[in-house]
Structure formats: structure tokens, C-alpha cells
């Protein structure tokens, strides 16, 4: 008994040692500079060398219609993309959970394909395909449809790009969630005469709420801070927070305002992060 305890103690120590390396790296290279930047948005150096509390950059952000319009556009893009990505991927995941065969494998391969294509390539490909005078428009013209309006440089451009980009991860998580549902429970429901919709609503959906929550939280984080898709595919204005921050920092050269925008972005994203962590914790308790 004693020996066993000792051994676990040693293993724990070793385990903490292993964890310490990435944790230290995160603290030193991520938490510390991020905390420093956030602190700097609220406390400014006074000429006499002391620190003074000053929330003027936040007041500016929340009273500036331009900044607020950018924040609203970011929220709109994030939520629309989020709803659509679940709506698109859930049926595919269901299909792949309940079907075997070459077609399902093919669809799985296709759905995971975006994972292996870098974002910048996707952007240029989408511009070529969906853009003005692109392939899609040419194809539609060929069959006599001439009212095509390209989504590129409209708010729908980044939504399409984000859905493409977020698809593999979403699908993998949904499939793994569906994998935990036992065939027996579905067959039992079928035996007592439940229809397909009924099975979906009462058996499947309740069991994958966690997966949907996780997918939503992770995609929220990915979408909200996106830089590439919005400025490659989106309109000039309003901007999403990612390009807005970058432009404020690099072009306007206003590090204080950029850090303020980043802090606000962080606070909003941390809500999604919280939802994710809570969902994980709940799941553990249930087990």
C-alpha cells in the first residue's frame, strides 16, 4: 500500500514536471505580455513617472460609431457563420454516423479536405471561383443565368470563407459526439415505434448538446478574431475586429487603441472560452 502511494507520488511529480514546460512557455510568452498590454490600456504613465488610471481609450471605443460598427459587424459575421456551420455539418455528421460504404468515406474525405489547404490559398481560390467574372459566374452564364452577384467583397464573403475553413474541425467533433450514442438506444427507440425525427429530437440531439456547445465555442474563438478571411474576402467597411486591430496597430500606429480593441475582443472571446471550459467540466462530472 505504502509503496504504491510512493510510486504514484513520483509519477505525479514527473507529470507536473512535464506539464511545467508548456505552462511556463504559455505564461512567459503569452500571459505575461498579454497582461502587460491589458494593464497598459488602463494605466498610463504620468509625466512625473507615476501611473494614473485612465479609461479614455475604452470611452473612445464605446462612443465611436465607427469602432462600434466594426464590433457589430464582427458579431454578425461570427453568429451567422456559427449557425450556418452547424446547420451544414450536422446533417453530414448524421449521415456519416449512420451510413457505411464508399460514398460515406468519399464524403468524409471531401469534408476533411479543407484541413490540408492553407487559408490564403482558399481565399484566392474562392476569389477565382466565386469572384466577379469567376468560374461560377461563367458556368451560370453558360446555362443562361445572368443575375449572379458575387459574394466576394460583401459581408457574405468572409462567412463563406469561415465556413469552409472551420468545416473539418466541426465535423470531426460532431462525429465523435455522435459516436458515443449507442446503436442499442436508437434501436430500442425504433422498437417502441419512434420515427426518424423523434429519434433525432429525443435520443440524438440531447446526447450531442455538449459537442454542439464545444463546436460553437471553438468556432466562435476562431471566427471572432479572424484576420485573413475578412480582409481578403470582405468589404472595405465595416471591418471585422481582426483587420481593424491590425490596421490600427500597423497603419494608424495607435498601439493604445489597438490594445484596447484587442482587450475588448479578448473579453468577448473569453465568454466563449468559459462556455467551453464549463462544458468540458460538466461532462467530466457526468462521467
Amino acid at each position, binding site marked *: 500500500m505504502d509503496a504504491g502511494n510512493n510510486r504514484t507520488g513520483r509519477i505525479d511529480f514527473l507529470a507536473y514536471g512535464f506539464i511545467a514546460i508548456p505552462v511556463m512557455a504559455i505564461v512567459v510568452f503569452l500571459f505575461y505580455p498579454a497582461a502587460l498590454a491589458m494593464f497598459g490600456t488602463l494605466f498610463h504613465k504620468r509625466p512625473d513617472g507615476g501611473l494614473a488610471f485612465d479609461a479614455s481609450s475604452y470611452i473612445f471605443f464605446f462612443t465611436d460609431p465607427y469602432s462600434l460598427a466594426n464590433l457589430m459587424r464582427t458579431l454578425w459575421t461570427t453568429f451567422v457563420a456559427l449557425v450556418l456551420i452547424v446547420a451544414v455539418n450536422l446533417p453530414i455528421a448524421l449521415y456519416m454516423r449512420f451510413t457505411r460504404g464508399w460514398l460515406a468515406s468519399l464524403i468524409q474525405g471531401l469534408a476533411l479536405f479543407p484541413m490540408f489547404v492553407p487559408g490564403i490559398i482558399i481565399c484566392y481560390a474562392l476569389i477565382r471561383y466565386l469572384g466577379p467574372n469567376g468560374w461560377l459566374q461563367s458556368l451560370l452564364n453558360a446555362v443562361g443565368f445572368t443575375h449572379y452577384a458575387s459574394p466576394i467583397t460583401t459581408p457574405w464573403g468572409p462567412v463563406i470563407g469561415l465556413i469552409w475553413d472551420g468545416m473539418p474541425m466541426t465535423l470531426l467533433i460532431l462525429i465523435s459526439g455522435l459516436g458515443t450514442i449507442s446503436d442499442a438506444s436508437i434501436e430500442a427507440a425504433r422498437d417502441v415505434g419512434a420515427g426518424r425525427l423523434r429519434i433525432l429530437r429525443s435520443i440524438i440531439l440531447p446526447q450531442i448538446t455538449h459537442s454542439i456547445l464545444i463546436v460553437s465555442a471553438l468556432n466562435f474563438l476562431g471566427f471572432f478574431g479572424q484576420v485573413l478571411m475578412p480582409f*481578403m474576402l470582405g468589404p*472595405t467597411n465595416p*471591418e471585422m475586429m481582426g*483587420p481593424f486591430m491590425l490596421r490600427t496597430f500597423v497603419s494608424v500606429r495607435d498601439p493604445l487603441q489597438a490594445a484596447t480593441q484587442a482587450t475588448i475582443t479578448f473579453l468577448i472571446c473569453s465568454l466563449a472560452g468559459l462556455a467551453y471550459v464549463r462544458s468540458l467540466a460538466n461532462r467530466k462530472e457526468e462521467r
Partner: protein
Amino acid sequence: MATHLRMDRRDFLRLSAAGAAFVAASGAQIGVSSAAEGTLDIFFNSDTNIIDFWTNVIKPGFEAANSGVTLNLVPGGGGSGVNALADRAMAAFQAKKDPQIDMLEATTPFYPAGSIEAGLWVNFETSGLSNQPKVNPVTVQSPFLLPYRGSQVVLMYNADQVKDVPATFPALVEWIKANPGKFTYARPDLGDSGACFIERALQEVTGQKPDLFQPENYTDAYANPMFEKLWPLLKEIQPALFNGGEYTSGNTASIQLLASGAISMTVAWSDMALQAMSQGVVPETTAVAQLQDLAFTGGFSGVVVPTVARNKDAAIKLADYIISADVQEKVVTDLGGFPSIGWDNLSKELQEKFAKVAPKSIPVFPGTWEPKLFEGWYRNVASNIKQ
């Protein structure tokens, strides 16, 4: 400053594409550069076409003439990446250590602030470059920056659809309004060609006097009345731009729109336009033109050398080599750029061939004006919010 910003933004797409990864990437590259004797570590701010030019033209020529010297050409990761390298050079300078940087390309000696006064950069006017007297004085911004290639913004258009290319700015505005949806320019912070367009518009509304805009004379009080005249003009043409008022996300994106036939005319960098035309990525009928009343602004890219560089002498020798007539002729023929030395130093044949496009002076718009100008553009032109 202007040149520096220019390159910044031209690399902006690539920079942002790589996102945070670029920091890690350039960090990794820094880690492996060994600052060996005889290996020159040169970091680039410019696009890959320029690094190709160095790889194919400058590196073989210089290494053949100087045995034992190797050029290590490293992409610097865009504007902020190169600024970080300049910061490192400054830190090494203060600590009297080897910065492991022998040359920075397409940047300026003005960053970090105070680095010139501290003595971080080599003064090319007093370091005995044999080709220095040939340098065209209009290209020189500072003795600590050696210009070696220039380019200028031009109108790039499809001659099939544009029969009478506008020769003045008012004529260009008229053309835009008469051909709705057929013209656009890049967002000023993402594509310098777009920046040059609004800067030329600013010069137009203030009476075509480029001298009004100096690197050190920007103040809000001085600039705002001029900006107030600029916004209405740009707002007025906005509905006649591509897609009812949409701007492209960069120099390449502008050329792509022209290539797809979605627009008939845009503004582009001369070197990128000439390259696109020689590569055949735009229709055969594509042509370039310059405004005749007052040319679009342009800029020269140069190199800086830290005084504490391990291979400083070899780096100065290399600086002398890149402004030699041999390399400068290649800048014209291979890069589609302008030479930084006087045209009379180049071959007669080249002089005659380029007599028409060779600008006597390239107007440069000061970079110090750009942050406020671009931010104002986003707020007053691109956005419909009433301030």
C-alpha cells in the same frame, strides 16, 4: 519614410496571411543565422520577386567577384518583421555585440527613432563607395540609406475597353464617372497603389503643389483643412467604382480584377504591372500610362548596413556593387524598375528605349502623413457613418 511604408504595405498581405506564425518563422530564421565570417546575412522586406532578383543576378555576380564571401538571403517577414530586426540591431549596437545582421533591404534608417543620431547605420556618403557619385540625387532620402531600385504608380488599363486613356487627373475622374463600375483602387493601407491614388487626389484638390507635403510639416491643424477638401472628391467617385463602391485588398487584387475583366482600369505599381504583362496573366491588350499633368507618386527602395555588422566591409562592398551600372541595367531590364543612378550611366540602347518613361523626378509623398490620411479615408470615405 515613404519608401519604407510602401514596402511595408506591399508585404502586408503576406505578413497578415502568415498571422502570428511569421513572428515564429522569422524568429527561427534569426536563430539559425550564425554571423559567420564571410557570410553576409541580408534580410528582405520586399516581395519574393525581389529576392529572386538577388538570387539570380546579384548573388552570383558578387560571389564570383569576391571569393570567400557568401550571401545569405533571408525573407524578413514583412514590415514589422524587419522593424523587429532593426530593433535587434539597435539593441546589439547598444550592447556592443554582433547583431547577426549585415544588411536590411527596403527599409529606412529612420527606425528605431534616434538610431541615426546614435550612429547605428553606415553613412554611404563617407564610406568611399566608388559608384556613389553616380547616384541620382533625387532618389536619396538620407545618406544612411542607399537607394538601388525605384518604381512608380501608373494607370493600368485594358486598351480594348479604354480607347482614350485619361492624361490628367480631372480627365481620370471624368472617365470614372462616365464608366461606372469599371475602375477601383486598393485600400490605401493594404496596397500602395491605392495610397498613391488618394495622395494624387489630395495633390489635386490642393492645387497640384506636391511641396505642400513635407516629411516634417504634418500637423492636424495644417492637414485637416486639406483633408476636408479631399473627402468630398473621393466620396463623389465612390458610387462609380467597382461593385458600387468597393476597394481591393491590395496591389495584386487590383491586377486580378483587371485580369478577370471585372474592371477596365486601375492603378498599379510599374514593376508589378510590367511583370504581370510579361507573364501574360493579364489580357494582351493591357497597357500602362502615366498622368501628364502631375505624375502619380512613387518611391525608391534602399539598403541599410549596421555599423556593428560583423561583415561590415563586405556589406559596404556589396552596397557599392548593387549600384554599379551592370546591376542597375538589370534593375531596368529584369525588374521593370527605375535605376537609382543617373540614366546617363546606363547603356545608350537602354537610355533610348526608356527615354519616354524615364521620369526626371519621382514625386514622393511623405510617410509621416499617411497614418492620419489613411485613417481619415476609412472613416470618411469607405464608411457611411456620419462623424
